[in-house]
């Protein structure tokens, strides 16, 4: 067992939580991520395996949220799979064993920061952050959009009250700053 202590994307040993009257911004560090891209000629096999893991095959603009592993579409025949880091630290390796030669698997755990925005003020805050039609997004919808010039994925977990955002990890501080400003502005 190695002795290296990981830190969160915001640089802490614990995840950061910021509470406002109508919104809570939570850094979600329990994050194991891997991308799955179907190999040429194995697209159907890959989709079958995606369905086995996620319960469904996320279409463009969609995510599946029901299983331990959740996933969302990121480009044609390419998906991002997410699982709890606490139980799936080696998610990419496990996926490689499962998908074998049907897909290219790339570990993405360190590439992304994840924030959960919850509360009744979510839509109002998100309207200050990105062009996604946040009030129209149903549970399971996923959008790629920009927040403060950063390309992000926005997932709807609960209608108008829980939004999950995946953004570039190196810019976690910038993203968090943008969320804080928007939350204060809407408070």
């Amino acid at each position, binding site marked *: *067992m*190695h*002795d*290296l*202590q*990981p*830190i*969160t*994307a915001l*640089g802490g040993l614990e995840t950061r939580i910021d509470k406002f009257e109508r919104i809570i911004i939570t850094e979600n560090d329990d994050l194991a991520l891997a*991308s799955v*891209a179907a*190999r*040429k*000629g194995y697209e159907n096999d890959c989709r079958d395996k995606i369905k086995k893991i996620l319960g469904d095959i996320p279409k463009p603009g969609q995510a599946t949220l029901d299983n331990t592993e959740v996933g969302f579409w990121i480009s044609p025949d*390419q998906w991002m799979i997410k699982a709890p880091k606490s139980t799936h630290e*080696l998610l990419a390796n496990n996926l490689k064993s499962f998908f074998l*030669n049907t897909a*290219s698997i*790339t*570990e*993405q*755990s*360190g*590439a*992304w920061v994840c924030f959960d925005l919850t509360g009744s003020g979510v839509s109002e805050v998100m*309207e*200050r952050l*990105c*062009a*996604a*039609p946040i*009030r*129209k997004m149903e549970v399971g919808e996923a959008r790629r959009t920009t927040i*403060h*010039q*950063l390309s992000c994925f926005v997932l709807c977990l609960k209608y108008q009250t829980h939004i999950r955002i995946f953004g*570039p*990890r*190196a*810019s*976690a*501080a*910038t*993203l968090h*700053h*943008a969320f804080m*400003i*928007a939350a*204060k*502005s809407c*408070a």
Partner: protein
Amino acid sequence: MTQTNRFSTGGQIQRDTSHQFIFDGKRYKGHAGDTLASALLANRVRLMGRSFKYHRPRGLLTAGSEEPNAIVELRAGDRQEPNTRATTAELYDGLVAKSQNRLGSLRFDLLAINDRLSNFLTAGFYYKTFMWPAAFWEKIYEPIIRNAAGLGSLSLKDDPDVYDKGFLHCDLLIIGSGPSGLAAAITAARSGAQVIIADEDFCMGGRLNSETFLLEDISGSEWAIKIVGELKNMPNVRVMSRTTVIGAFDHGTYGAVERISDHVLQPEIDKPRQILWRIYTQRTILAGGAIERPIAFENNDRPGIMLASALRTYANRFSVTADKRVAIFTNNDDGHRTAVDLHNKGVKIAAVVDVRSDAPTSLDYEVLHGEIINTKGRLGLTFAEVRLKDGSVKSIKCGAIGMSGGWNPNVHMTCHQRGRPQWNKDLAAFVPGHDLPPGMTVAGAANGDFSTAGALRGGQTAAIEALNLKKTSFNLPTAEDATINLTPFWYVEGCSRAWLDQQNDVTVKDVKLSYQEGFRSVEHLKRYTTLGMATDQGKTSNMGGLAIMAELSGKSIPETGTTIFRPPYTPTAIGAFGGRHRGQDFHPKRLTPSHQWATEHNAVFVEVGNWLRAQWFPRDGETTWRESVDREVLATRKSVGVCDVTTLGKIDVQGTEAADFLNKIYCNGFAKLAVGKTRYGLMLREDGIAMDDGTAARLFEDHFVVTTTTANALPVYRHMEFVRQCLFPDIDVQLISTTEAWAQYAVAGPNSRSVLRKIVDQDISNDAFPFMACANITVCGGLRARLFRISFSGELAYEIAVPTAYGDALMRKIMQVGAEFNITPYGTEALGVMRIEKGHAAGNELNGTTTAQNLGMGRMISKKKDSIGSILSEREGLNTTSDLRQIGIKPIFSEASIPAGAHLMNITGPITAVHDQGYITSSCYSPNLGHAIALGFLKNGTERIGEHMRLVSPLTKVETKIEIVSPHFLDPEGERLRA
């Protein structure tokens, strides 16, 4: 006594809430619900500004955002904002405003001398006068004109307020909340559609707030309050007052500025002053109303002369009269409506001057058939002269005149995508054309339906059609439905200084001069006279100028043409466009995994794109950056150093044909690269010019990791995706960026292996892990990691990578285990010094103009395969023997510096561009060699090693002798990195 022009009752002001404000240093009182304009008028202040060119005294012309005259500097200190319209500035307690465009006081403006010189300062004066002598332009004319030009002044301080941006989506956007806008909104809202209704005013209702007629049995303003109240309670409706829709843009998007805090002294903490919304809508109803036209007559610009509809607004909405004696000059029935309203409030109507022979009569006031031909009053109107039909002239005592020349539908936003309005003969006005922005419908007065009933009908019909509704539960109220009775009348014959565009001081005479001098097209007229320019975009003046030009040229108005409008609808603060993207937040930051550690160790950071990289790590006693950098370089070459290189682009390349793919994007071969090996690769553009360099490590048969330079991480990835998706879509290869997924550190120096042996769980001896090896490994007892034996410094070196979350811990671990070897962290400056010492090309050399041959890498281009750029790299022009070649440079005199960008000249001969031999791309001080060194390009450079030349930099006045040397200053055989 204050507010002597305020009626004792009526209006929509809150009389129980008084606001104190200051205008030009003098204190006044107004009420909540006032604008600055209405409050000044209530206090008998008619003089509010000076005109742009002639500095003539000016007062209010309008009561809305089309105002050309009452332009003030609002607020003070760092919140001072010039060119704010007093007519839209909402009054608040503590408001401070100042008139502008004056030298001295507003009453005694020294630049009013310009008015005396008006015969010389006509349209075209500048173009004719400042032509000669040519030498005078830059030193004399331009400074004078610049000093005199411009409206208002800037505080020259940072704006203390913040601005937000936001994004809204709806089925139907309604612009304007007058009768048509509200009828459309309530009809649409009750159908369940997502509706946004926006109005620039702080009080919704549009003209309903300015009129006295009833809708059913309640006043227009009460009806508006009722409808707005219902809309506000509907979850599918967003009611946005104080929100100006500024533009109609592509794909159904509209820009709108919401003024969150402009009506208070200063924004609450953390709250924005304004929000710039981008509204995405399926359909739009433009219900922007209409703007009344003035009439041009001699001296029609004196304070007190305004639009008749504005007089009505001030009286009915703000309970204010411009004066106790008011005259009306009209060509239509609407002017009489103003007279009736004012008369009913006890204002003396001095006369209604109507140009029509069939003008209605009145028992309450005198109606004169004729024209106002002149006015008097130095700083405000006192008398008007009327020429009656029989030719006699009558003088009327009055302090205000209401001009009513008909109405122009507010077509501004219909033009934002090059739509052209159409002439409507019955209205004598332009109405929206057929080429509207997609999805837009126009309703109400903006569409030429000037009666209230017509506007209500138009709004409801537009909503039904826009949403394809089968029925509606909203029944329209009964309302006035008067027909238009108007005789077109634009200006009074025989006048010389009759003002058309009061903001730009354009007169009827100027238009005639423009015609005389051949500037007859509408666009030429605008440029020649400045008609329609500046903050109001000619909303009250364009039609007058056009009509006069039409008359002069003997054409109809539509034949003469029309100008169109462009966004923004009203002036918009630049801050609103910037939003939160200013100062430190101008662009996002990317922090490296060791950022926290580097901060703890006093790193000086440098911006590299969005990345913040440690540039050097100063230590106690070091007084200059050079001391720190020299120390870091020497320590690394002597023992070991560590540098965060996470910022280098990393692209995961997988697939059964990944090697074939790399063979296409790199000019050198990759198909036979063994698993566990890394190779340097050079990427060419299609035109054969070098694009980027980097390495590709083969971790498995079907899995490579490509690295790029930091600067080109994104362009290279984009290029690779283009090649994959568009050029070779059938290849089995998958790409994804992993730049941020891995924290990567370069560990360099003769003791680097010794340091890493304490961390890496596997054998990394030279035999087990030779130069250019790569592998998936584990570190510190089991953490997955990657190791590459590559060197940018020329030393024995490795790059080690772990998942980013562990990057901070790994850096601390490396420093801990390296302590016994005096490990030294180094930044980008030391990195740069070492790569120049080694002769490695970087961004300065791969500068978009250089070829593989220039870089000394011509032989890397494989002839055994095809790759992007390889064919065009063989072009004759790129392969002459006298081509530039990368060389090293060192000074003859060791203390001399070598500035990058300097040029190389032969030791004798002229220093001219024709004789240029080459140039310096990178330079630094080499602490190992004890003098400056540089890389550069020299014609036929490979053959000129040892030659002495002159290095010149005319800009920095440097001329020194240098020697051309090999670009590899240290360890040219590469023994160190293979050790």
